[in-house]
């Protein structure tokens, strides 16, 4: 038995696939944007002070003194001294996993959380420590913040490119959908125009006949993107209604954009094809 697919089924599938891809691009872009922004904000709200190791090793007393000086500096909200094993863990990529006695030669690190209302400046902390005779390096995470921005840019370019490619494909699919319908109903539409149907009514009839496949294709694509997004963990882990709201809005907006782009090109094609058919 020959399988007979309904008219426009191929366009419907193409629309669904492109909308799903566009939705995933938008969701991915929004997630990268949000995560890097959170990271950058957190980095900007903290500084790390590294106490240079003395030849005989850095004593806890010296570290505590440095922490007290930092805590007393204006613009500092909280100070946390990181224990040696935590430092070893953080610096492991650079120290090839130093252990035992080697830990003594590692610098001691103090995490400084800044007061967000009037944050302390890097130079201010360095001056306070220097004045007290503490040999330390103050890192205001400029490098990491640049890395976060670079990461955002690098991730945004292919995602935006993918989104643009999907939208171009959707525009073509919308246009093809109407062209196919105009081809199928060409003789009938020409006759109607010759009998006095207004070009506007003809455009409306041509456009509306394609709306179900465009709308349902976009809707299905949006649902596929939502399912894939949840499955691949693009949505915030441990998601609840509040955390899912933003990805849902992004996905809804992307799906609506896809439907609007496909619909707009379908409408333009309907106008053009009607004009061509009009005697």
């Amino acid at each position, binding site marked *: 038995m020959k399988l007979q697919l309904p008219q426009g089924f191929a366009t419907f599938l193409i629309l669904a696939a492109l909308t799903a891809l566009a939705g995933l691009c938008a969701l991915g872009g929004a997630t990268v944007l949000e995560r890097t922004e959170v990271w950058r904000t957190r980095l900007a709200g903290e500084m790390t002070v590294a106490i240079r190791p003395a030849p005989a090793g850095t004593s806890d007393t010296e570290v505590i003194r440095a922490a007290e000086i930092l805590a007393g500096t204006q613009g500092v909200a909280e100070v946390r001294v990181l224990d040696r094993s935590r430092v070893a863990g953080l610096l492991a990529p650079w120290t090839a996993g130093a252990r035992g006695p080697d830990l003594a030669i590692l610098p001691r690190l103090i995490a400084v959380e800044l007061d967000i209302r009037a944050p302390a400046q890097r130079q201010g902390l360095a001056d306070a420590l220097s004045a007290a005779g503490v040999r330390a390096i103050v890192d205001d995470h400029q490098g990491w913040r640049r890395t976060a921005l670079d990461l955002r840019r690098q991730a945004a370019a292919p995602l935006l490119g993918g989104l643009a490619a999907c939208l171009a494909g959707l525009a073509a699919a919308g246009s093809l959908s109407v062209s196919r319908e105009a081809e199928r109903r060409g*003789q009938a539409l020409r*006759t*109607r125009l010759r*009998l006095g149907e207004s070009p506007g*009514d003809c455009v409306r009839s041509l456009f509306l006949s394609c709306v179900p496949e465009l709308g349902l294709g976009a809707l299905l694509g949006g649902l596929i993107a939502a399912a894939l997004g949840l499955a691949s963990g693009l949505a915030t882990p441990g998601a609840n209604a509040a955390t899912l709201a933003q990805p849902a809005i992004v996905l809804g907006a992307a799906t609506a954009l896809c439907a609007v782009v496909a619909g707009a090109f379908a409408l333009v094609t309907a106008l053009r094809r009607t004009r061509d058919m*009009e005697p």
Partner: protein
Amino acid sequence: MSDPAPSSSPPIALRLTGLSAPQRAGTDGLEGVNLEVPEGGFLLVHGDAGAGKSLLMAMAGLALRPGAGRLQLLGLDPWGVSRQGRARLRRRLGLVFQDLSLIDDMTVAENAALPMRIAGVRPEVLRRDVGELLTWMGLSGKAAARPGDLNHDECQRLAVARAVAGRPEIILADEPVGWMGPEAAARVLRLLLQLNRQGVTLVMASRNPDLAPAPQKLELVRGRPRPEVRP
């Protein structure tokens, strides 16, 4: 064909002035056609195959734009008005196309009702009028059939039914009875002439110069009008 009508004459329904059209496949084109058909008049355009009858009817029915010259329909220049205006003007015409142009995915009743539907006639009036018309045309038993289920004679009757359904001011019929049997042809001609007597302007094209007793005749010979010879 005739001089502009004096002011006491009825208004002109169709006026062609120096109308020309380029050659098309199988026809010689048209050159220098001048004619005036008053409102309520009846013109029979005749000539051999390829003489340009269908070309003239296509231009009068606004399916083609004249290459040169002027066309006036019901006092309007159709190619000088907006697309909407042209669509409104088309609704005042009843057309029988040579190729019939029936819509295959509509039923016989829907095809016949199309001009009324386009004109926005109320559904109950539309149903009643189309029912009467199909009965007159001998197609009442086929109202739910598709044009593909009809023979050519029936298709032609349906095309005539559709042309008259919208109560047009001008009927332009290209070979309206060409494929019909004598009985059906006589019936359809009777209907068209009756509408003409009621004031509808009638323009028919046929190879047969004696198809109907038209007060105005235009013979086309290789795209040019032959001067009318009065006995």
